[in-house]
């Protein structure tokens, strides 16, 4: 494993624009180096944002980190790019199963097109059995909890199923190793679908209660995220309105100076630090944190928030 990582790292160092970042990130994930794996995958996605396989690799990393919501986002992105992506269907199938969306889980596992694999066949059979039981229950008095227990109980080996799935397709002839065990416990903890998901977009990207994040459009309207002041009042709209035009003014200033595109704006105030970055479609990602938060960490949070914002905008726009 270490040799493989070393070899892939050398390959990537020789050609940073190559697609070797995918097997490298996956190898790092399997070695348990999740933070490094995520950095490699995110950097690769900066250069190759439209590769479904790359989003699949990132999804596995998120799953192993216990961030199933982001994993789900990445698999959905992979499917947008390649609607027949087997691994993404497989990953989302298990997420749907854990959510109790059995019909969707059955559809996705079937669409994964890997029925020949015993693990997937078993999982599919389990889902179908649960579906059948549910249908039977609908025609019975609602007195039994047996079906609910069956639906809530996990399939025998969901992790094994994903682990046994076919290897990720290997662009440029590279060997992409089969995915390893994802974090099943994280899947189990997946929250129920939330209609106010846009407001919650950055929650999992932040580190503490003293941090907020917003996605603001070019007109100063809130697209996603939330912002409450120290008294608990929602001030997202007013903060966003005050920041209208920041992106265009920063761009103009840099154009006058010939210093290239602007990359970030950091505002230090008595009580908090605000950091901003340009996001797609002329929007702006804003992260606020208390003054106790190290500035370097604020920038890291901003990077995370930007990644979430990009994915979210790509889905909704």
């Amino acid at each position, binding site marked *: 494993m270490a040799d493989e990582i070393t070899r892939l790292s050398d390959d990537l160092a020789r050609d940073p624009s190559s697609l070797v970042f995918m097997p490298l990130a996956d190898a790092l994930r399997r070695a348990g180096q999740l933070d490094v794996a995520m950095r490699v995958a995110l950097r690769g996605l900066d250069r190759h944002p439209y590769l479904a396989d790359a989003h699949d690799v990132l999804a596995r990393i998120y799953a192993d980190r216990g961030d199933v919501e982001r994993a789900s986002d990445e698999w959905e992105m992979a499917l947008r790019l390649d609607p027949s992506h087997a691994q993404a269907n497989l990953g989302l199938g298990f997420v749907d199963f854990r959510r109790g969306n059995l019909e969707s889980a059955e559809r996705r596992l079937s669409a994964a097109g890997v029925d020949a694999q015993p693990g997937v066949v078993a999982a599919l059979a389990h889902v179908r059995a649960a579906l059948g039981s549910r249908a039977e229950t609908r025609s019975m008095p609602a007195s039994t909890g047996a079906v609910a227990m069956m639906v809530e109980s996990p399939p025998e080996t969901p992790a094994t199923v994903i682990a046994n799935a076919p290897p990720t397709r290997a662009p440029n002839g590279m060997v992409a190793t089969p995915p390893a065990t994802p974090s099943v416990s994280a899947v189990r903890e997946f929250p129920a679908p939330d209609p106010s998901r846009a407001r919650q977009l950055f929650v999992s990207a932040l580190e503490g209660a003293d941090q907020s994040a917003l996605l603001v459009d070019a007109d100063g309207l809130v697209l996603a995220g939330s912002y409450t002041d120290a008294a608990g009042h929602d001030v997202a709209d007013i903060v966003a309105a005050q920041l209208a035009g920041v992106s265009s003014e920063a761009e103009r200033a840099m154009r006058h*100076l010939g210093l290239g595109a602007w990359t970030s704006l950091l505002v*230090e105030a008595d*009580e*908090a630090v*605000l950091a901003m970055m340009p996001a797609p479609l002329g929007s702006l990602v804003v992260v*606020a944190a208390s003054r106790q938060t190290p500035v370097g960490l604020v920038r890291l949070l901003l990077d995370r928030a930007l990644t979430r914002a990009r994915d979210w905008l790509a889905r909704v726009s």
Partner: protein
Amino acid sequence: MNKTPYAELLTMLSRHRGVVGSFVVSERDGLSIDSNVQIGVQAEAVAALAASLHRKARLACGAAGCGTVTFLRLDAERGGICAAGRDDLVLVTISEARANIGLLRVEMMRAARALT
């Protein structure tokens, strides 16, 4: 031409490595009060934009209950702008990527406290 009270301060800031210009600007109208910039830097336009950015940051921080803005830093691919204000006056520097922003920040925040 008479020197303004800021001439010495601006000269000192412009001596920092990578700093290509510095000026004091009115946040209210974006007009440059005094400047020390290298030839070729469009001081007037940049002063107005920097003042506007500082104003927006101040208003946003006010709305968010973050208190007074003490320092602002706009980063770009090959350099950036730093600003530190007091009341209506904003001290602005333009720097290349090789500038020591940490040192510049300390100097600017100290200098801004003395702006009147």
